[in-house]
């Protein structure tokens, strides 16, 4: 047999060699290949020394506490596969339906129920919108400063996509008199505009400006809190009598 290749030794090390017996026999006879295999094992055994931070026995419970409240929202939207493809059209439709429902009031006992259903559907859409916005803001806030230019084309494109939805939601919140939500969406819109109109490659100074705008308004925090409230309302059972704002 010829000398054993590195690939053959790797497969032997991991117990996935189809020719293990033949290679073993060769190693017994060939000092050069034995030495090569020793060197390979030494490196791979050294890799095992890379430390992993310990997590105690209670870790699983801590993880459960973190995700418990988010599970309801996730399951509800599970059937909306590839929702982002038709999200803008859905958004327009939902908001139009929502506003139409508010101003063209049908007669009859189902009025309150219909109103609740519309508002809960809108909550799901707003929740997704805030989650996506949060991702953009977090990406930019956490982007490392330094020398050279940073390509933010992905964030820029996402901000452009989010802007139309944001306008609709802000107008809806204004029309329903929900000023807290309207103000947060107003702040968000200003920053989204800045991001959408930024160059695809930003310098450290430009990145710092964007980060300052996000920080000065405490926007990331506000969006997180609002998103969390919206998600809680999504999960909570629908109220029987009173209508809830966003």
């Amino acid at each position: 047999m010829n000398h054993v290749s590195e690939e053959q030794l790797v497969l032997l090390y991991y117990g996935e060699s189809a020719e293990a017996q033949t290679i073993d026999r060769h190693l017994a006879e060939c000092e050069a290949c034995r030495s090569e295999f020793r060197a390979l094992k030494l490196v791979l055994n050294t890799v095992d020394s890379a430390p992993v931070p310990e997590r105690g026995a209670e870790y699983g419970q801590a993880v459960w506490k973190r995700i418990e409240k988010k599970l309801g929202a996730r399951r509800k939207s599970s059937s909306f596969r590839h929702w982002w493809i038709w999200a803008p059209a859905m958004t327009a439709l939902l908001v139009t339906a929502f506003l139409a429902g508010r101003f063209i009031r049908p007669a009859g006992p189902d009025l309150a129920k219909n109103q609740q259903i519309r508002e809960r559907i809108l909550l799901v859409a707003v929740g997704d919108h805030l989650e996506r916005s949060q991702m953009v803001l977090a990406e930019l806030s956490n982007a490392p400063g330094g020398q050279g230019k940073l390509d933010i084309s992905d964030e820029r494109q996402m901000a452009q996509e989010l802007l139309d939805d944001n306008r609709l939601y802000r107008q809806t919140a204004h029309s329903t008199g929900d000023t807290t939500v309207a103000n947060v969406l107003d702040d968000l819109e200003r920053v989204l505009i800045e991001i959408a109109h930024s160059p695809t490659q930003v310098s450290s100074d430009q990145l710092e400006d964007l980060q300052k705008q996000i920080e000065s308004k405490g926007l990331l925090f506000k969006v997180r809190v609002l998103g969390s409230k919206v998600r809680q309302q999504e999960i909570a059972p629908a109220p029987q009598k009173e209508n809830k704002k966003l």
Partner: protein
Amino acid sequence: MEVDAGGAVERARSGDSDAFRLLVEQHSRAIFRLAFRMTGNEQDAEDVVQETFLRAYKQLDRYEARSSFSTWLFRIASNYSLDLIRMRKRHEDKRQRSTEEDHDILQSIPLDTPGPDRLVYGTQVQDRVNAALNELSPQERTAFVLRHFEGLSIEEIGASLGTGTNATKHSIFRAVQKLRRSLEPVVGHAK
């Protein structure tokens, strides 16, 4: 060996959130270890753990008992980690950091052993191992971690990542080659 506490998977699939809680408690630590080895970052690993269970819950209907539940979770975690490290790498690349600079960082970790202090030496080796793992491409690192630390077969990894057996095998070979290039000068001192 994996223990399915009282058919927790089946119960979770039928909407029993207590059963899903049991699964989260049972598998969180293993997912964290995998995620940390893949991302090399504690905060990212925490994100991966959280997102893995949220995605698993959402996709429970799609779980088929052909593979073990832990393998299925590993698949979700490794794919999400892969996305995460690709995104991080993209940001780094966009920042136009040259590979020479990375190489300099790797080289800046001293090779000389500081005398008899084995603890310090051990830390240096660990730093070198971490730096060497960071040199791998996302695909190489994912395939290597799943094979080396988690003991998944090459075929399983190929199926999990959707890359096929041959491409997975070559990712592992390339990873091992890179690790040897980076670490052999260090472990040579240990001999």
